[in-house]
């Protein structure tokens, strides 16, 4: 799906912190969207979290820095981090080059399956997600975010 020139694969689930998740063998693979990486610019550093840490939905699990911005990555669901993409330690730009594949960030074992139901599914509430992205884009352009 294309929203304002940003790419959002339809098989993924999205949260309202510009993250995506994909169910993969009982765990959730997570990363950030094309909108996130384009808005942030060239990523120069990501502090990868330790495997084994527990995270809460909506709370920061990592920090990220681009040439023009610094921010937090927030957990799409609560659970335990079971794997991290250590390639990003040395090659953070993978997040720009392939936010949905080589730039994945963590894998989470979810604590509460019902949190997954609360995520955006493009074939179900894609219109609602489009409105959300358009609103976020507007806020950024107006300097409100």
């Amino acid at each position, binding site marked *: 799906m294309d929203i304002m020139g940003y790419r959002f694969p339809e098989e993924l689930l999205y949260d309202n912190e510009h993250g995506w998740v994909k169910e993969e063998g009982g765990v959730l693979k997570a990363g950030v969207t094309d909108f996130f990486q384009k808005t942030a610019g060239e990523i*120069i*550093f*990501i*502090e990868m979290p330790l495997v084994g840490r527990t995270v809460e939905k909506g709370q*920061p699990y*990592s920090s990220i*820095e681009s040439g023009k911005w610094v921010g937090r990555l927030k957990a799409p669901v609560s659970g335990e981090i079971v794997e991290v993409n250590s390639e990003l330690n040395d090659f953070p730009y993978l997040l720009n080059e392939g936010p949905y594949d080589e730039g994945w960030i963590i894998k989470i074992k979810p604590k509460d399956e019902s949190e997954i139901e609360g995520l955006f599914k493009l074939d179900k509430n894609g219109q609602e997600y489009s409105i959300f992205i358009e609103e976020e884009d507007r806020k950024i352009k107006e300097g409100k975010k």
Partner: protein
Amino acid sequence: MLNRQEGDEAMNSTKQLDEKSFDFGFLEEMLASVPDGAKLKTCIQCGSCSGSCPAAEGMEVTPRRLWRLVQLGMEKEVMEAQNFWQCATCALCEIRCPRGIPLSQIMTKLREYYTVKEGPLAAMGQIMSILDKARNITGDEAKNRLLWTGNLVMKPNESLVKDKASVVYFTGCVSSLFPQVYKIPQAMTQVLLKAGVDFTLLGEEEWCCGYPMLGAGQGEKALAEYANHNLKAIKQKGAKTVLISCPTCLYVFEKVYPKVLGGDLGVKVQHYSEYLVDLIKNGKIEFKTDEAAVTYHDPCDLGRKSHITEEPRELIQLLPGVKLIEMRFNRDQSKCCGGGGNLEMLNAGLSNEIAQKRVTEALETSAQYFLTTCQQCKRTLQNAARKMRARIKVYDLMEFIAERIEEPGGGQA
């Protein structure tokens, strides 16, 4: 903004100017604003300031021309020049000025004067608004000041935020909130835990030291609220020593806070490079031998402004197998990294150009590691090295030390 040709015309074609162009009240106000400011009258226009200034190439009116305009009381032209916003406040001009004029301090005063007359510069208004709301430079919630501790592995009896401790480690906004330099506080706490130091962080209670207010032309008095808050939080911990890894915070604590609070702070303030030498000499920390050639960049706020140049070098020499190769410009003659004076916020391109020049000087030494003792120098130099594809590793000395500890104990980054 006045360009160079117009600046020349303004100075050389005085026949076109009438007496209203010269406001000596403006001149006198500037001279009275800083100690020894009156020395500006003795400026001989030698150009040492312009020749030393790392940002001069990005200025339409050079520092030398600016001082002449100030000498002539040409307020309008000075305000239009606006080059004081390009100043990285590195103070190399001040060190090299043959007349001993406090040029860097007058530059900062010009920012204040501009702000009073014209209102805050847009980008500066933005940072002030963020500081006012969040008390840090990114606008993060206070709890995010501790995100860098998330990856530390602690022993059950170890704690980083305690009610009471003899030492407070004042982490600073950049080290607390910019992940590119998280390794500095992580390394610091690792070393302090290893050495058995009774220390604490202020955690959510820590506020920005207030420096960005100075850089934004708000004047020293604007820091009073920040000074009061931070000192109160430190004293509530019962601490006798404040340990600082950020040279700018150190400068503000040592040089600005006593002025705005009206006297001695009642606590000893030290940069880690001063504090660690004794710990190492007393055998509290031991190192493995690891051959490496390093060069060292003196941060402006630590070297020129706080006169701490030998302690970092002594620390480097205490590391077995490490060889220090000096750069051409070192100690009080060190060139700027481009990251000071809010310049990165105001003109990121110019900041990066300045940093690239410094990286080039480091490469001349053929060192493997480019060490510094400042999180902002590390960020700007590392980003420049990355852009240049330079094969040199940029480290803060604190990280370099932590990697060489013989048997890491306590929290590990």
